[in-house]
C-alpha cells in the first residue's frame, strides 16, 4: 500500500469505492482545508472521474433518517435543569467512599500522602497552637466600605480580593504552623500553596485550604456561599458537618443550617473582582442592593416595583450613571443622581 501514493490508489475507484472511503465522505459532508485541497487536486488530475465523484457525493448527501425526531425546546430546558439539579442531590455526607476509591489510583497516592501529612500537621496544630494562641502575632484588619474593593497581599504570597462592605483580619506575618484569616462579607482568595494549612474563619464555619482559588460570600444574616475555582477545600460548620468541594462546585449554607452543593457561573460569582457587575434575572431588591454595595451609594426608591420586575445585564468597569442608563433603557426605571445619593422612580 505504502508504495502507492493516494493519487494511484484512488485512480481505479468506482462509485462504491469512493462511497466506502472515509476520507471521501468526510470531504463531501464536512469539507475543510485539508480534504478539499486533496480532492480538488485529485479531480483536476482525474477529470474523467468527475461523473462518479458527483454520483457518489450526491448519494452520501442524500442519506437521512426517515423520521426526523425533534428533541424540542421544552425537553431541552427541562432535562438540562434536571441534570443540573441532580448535582445537589448527591449525598454530601459520604466523602469516605470516594476518598478511599481515589486512594487506589496510583497517581493519587502522592496527593494522598501529602493530604494525610497535612491533616496530621493540622491535628497537632489544633491540639497545641490554636488552643493557646500565640500572643506575639500582630493582627491587621482591613475594612472596605460600600463602593470600595481592594486587593491584599499576605506574607505567604496569598492574594485576597476583598469586596465592598467586607472585612478581613489577618496576621502581619504568618506563624510557622498555620495560616488563619477571619472574614466578614465577600472575598476571592488565591491561596499560595504551602505545607501550612490555610484557614478562613467565618462566623459559623471554617474553610480549610491547601492551595487553591475560591470565592466566599457571607451575607449579614450568615447565608454563606463558597465557590471553588481550583484545587480543593474542606468546609466545617459549627456542629461538625464537613464537606469537601471539588472545582466548579459551590457550597451554599443557609442560615438555618441547611447546606447543599450546586454548580455556578464563574462570571456571575467571581466577576466582581475583575470589575464585572452582573445582574442575572434579578428582582428590584437585588438590583438595588447590588448597586448600593457596588457604588457605595444611598438609594431612595419612589414608586413601586412589582415582583415580576426582573433585570439581566453585564457591565464591565462602568460608571454609576451608565449602569443606571442601561437599566433605564430596557426596564422602565427613571433615576436622578446627586453625588452619593440616588433617587430611583418609575
Amino acid at each position, binding site marked *: 500500500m505504502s508504495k502507492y501514493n493516494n493519487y494511484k490508489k484512488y485512480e481505479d475507484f468506482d*462509485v*462504491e469505492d469512493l*462511497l*466506502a472511503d*472515509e476520507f471521501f*465522505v*468526510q470531504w463531501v*459532508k*464536512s469539507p475543510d482545508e485539508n480534504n478539499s485541497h486533496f480532492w480538488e487536486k485529485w479531480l483536476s488530475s482525474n477529470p474523467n472521474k468527475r*461523473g462518479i465523484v458527483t*454520483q457518489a457525493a*450526491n*448519494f*452520501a*448527501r*442524500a*442519506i*437521512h*433518517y*426517515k*423520521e*426526523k*425526531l*425533534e*428533541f424540542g425546546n421544552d*425537553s*431541552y430546558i427541562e*432535562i*438540562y435543569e*434536571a*441534570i443540573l439539579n*441532580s*448535582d445537589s442531590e*448527591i449525598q454530601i455526607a459520604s466523602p469516605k467512599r470516594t476518598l478511599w*476509591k*481515589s486512594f487506589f*489510583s496510583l497517581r493519587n497516592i502522592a496527593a494522598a500522602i501529602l493530604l494525610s501529612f497535612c491533616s496530621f500537621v493540622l491535628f497537632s496544630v489544633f491540639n497545641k497552637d490554636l488552643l493557646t494562641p500565640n500572643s506575639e502575632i500582630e493582627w491587621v484588619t482591613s475594612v472596605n466600605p460600600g463602593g470600595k474593593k481592594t486587593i491584599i497581599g499576605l506574607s505567604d504570597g496569598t492574594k485576597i480580593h476583598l469586596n465592598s462592605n467586607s472585612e478581613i483580619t489577618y496576621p502581619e506575618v504568618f506563624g510557622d504552623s498555620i495560616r488563619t484569616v477571619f472574614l466578614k462579607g465577600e472575598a476571592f482568595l488565591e491561596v499560595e500553596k504551602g505545607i501550612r494549612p490555610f484557614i478562613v474563619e467565618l462566623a459559623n464555619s471554617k474553610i480549610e485550604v491547601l492551595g487553591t482559588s475560591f470565592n466566599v460570600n457571607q451575607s449579614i444574616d450568615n447565608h454563606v456561599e463558597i465557590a471553588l475555582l481550583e484545587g480543593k477545600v474542606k468546609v466545617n460548620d459549627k456542629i461538625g458537618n464537613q464537606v469537601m468541594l*471539588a*472545582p*466548579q*462546585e459551590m457550597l451554599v449554607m443557609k442560615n438555618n443550617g441547611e447546606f447543599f452543593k450546586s*454548580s*455556578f*457561573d*464563574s462570571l456571575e460569582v467571581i466577576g466582581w473582582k475583575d470589575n464585572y457587575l452582573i445582574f442575572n*434575572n434579578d428582582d428590584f431588591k437585588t438590583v438595588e442592593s447590588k448597586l448600593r454595595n457596588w457604588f457605595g451609594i444611598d438609594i431612595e426608591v419612589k414608586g413601586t416595583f412589582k415582583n415580576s420586575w*426582573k*433585570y*439581566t*445585564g*453585564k*457591565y464591565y468597569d*462602568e460608571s454609576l450613571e*451608565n449602569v443606571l*442608563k*442601561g437599566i433605564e*433603557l*430596557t426596564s422602565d426605571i427613571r433615576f436622578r443622581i446627586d453625588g452619593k445619593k440616588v433617587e430611583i422612580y418609575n
Partner: protein
Amino acid sequence: MNNNPKKQSDSIFIPVKHLETIKVFEKKSDCDIWNAFNKGDEMAFNYLYRTYVQELYQFGSQYSRDPSLVKDCIQNLFIYLRKKRGELSEVTNIKGYLFRSIQREIIKNVKANTSLKGVEDDFLEGQFEIEVSPEVSLIQNESEVERNRLVKDGIDQLTTKQRMAILLFYEEELSYKEIAEIMNFSEVKTARKLIYRALASLKEYIKTTGE
C-alpha cells in the same frame, strides 16, 4: 439621550454567552473538550449537552419508540457522566462514546420494561429507516424518477444492520472505528465490509431491477 449606549439587555446577554461557549470549544479537539468536562468545566458540559442532545435523541429513538424513555435515558447518561467527573477515562471521539453509552442505557431500560430476551440482537421493525432525498443515482443514464425510486427500493431491501451502518457513516459522519465499536464488531474492517457490501448489493439491485 445617547444614540449608541452600551446597553446590555437580557436579549443580548444570554445568546452572547452561549456563542462564546461554542466558539471556545469548537476549535478544540474532542480530547481537550472531554478533559475540560472531566475537570469540572461547566462550559464544557454546556457545550456537550447543546451539541449532542438532539443527535442522541434521534439515534436513541431507533431503539425505543417511547420518547419519554429515550429522554429519561439521555438525562440519566448526563447525570452519570457529571457524577463521574474527575475519574472519567480519555475519550478521543465524543460522539462515538456518547452513542455507545446511550445505546447501552436504552437497551438496558427497554429490557427491564419488557423483559424480552435478546433485544440487542433482534432489531425491531422500523429501526434505522432511511429516507433518500432526490437527485440520487448509482448508475448513470436512468430516467430521473425511475432511478430515485430504484434507490429507495434498493435501500429498503437492505438489512437493518446495513441501514444502521449507512446512517452512522453518512448521516452521522462517524468513522469505521466508531461504527465498529457501536455495533460491537471486534474488528474495524468489519464495519467497512458491511458498508461496502451494502453498496454493492444496492448497485446490483438497481442494475437487475432497472433492466
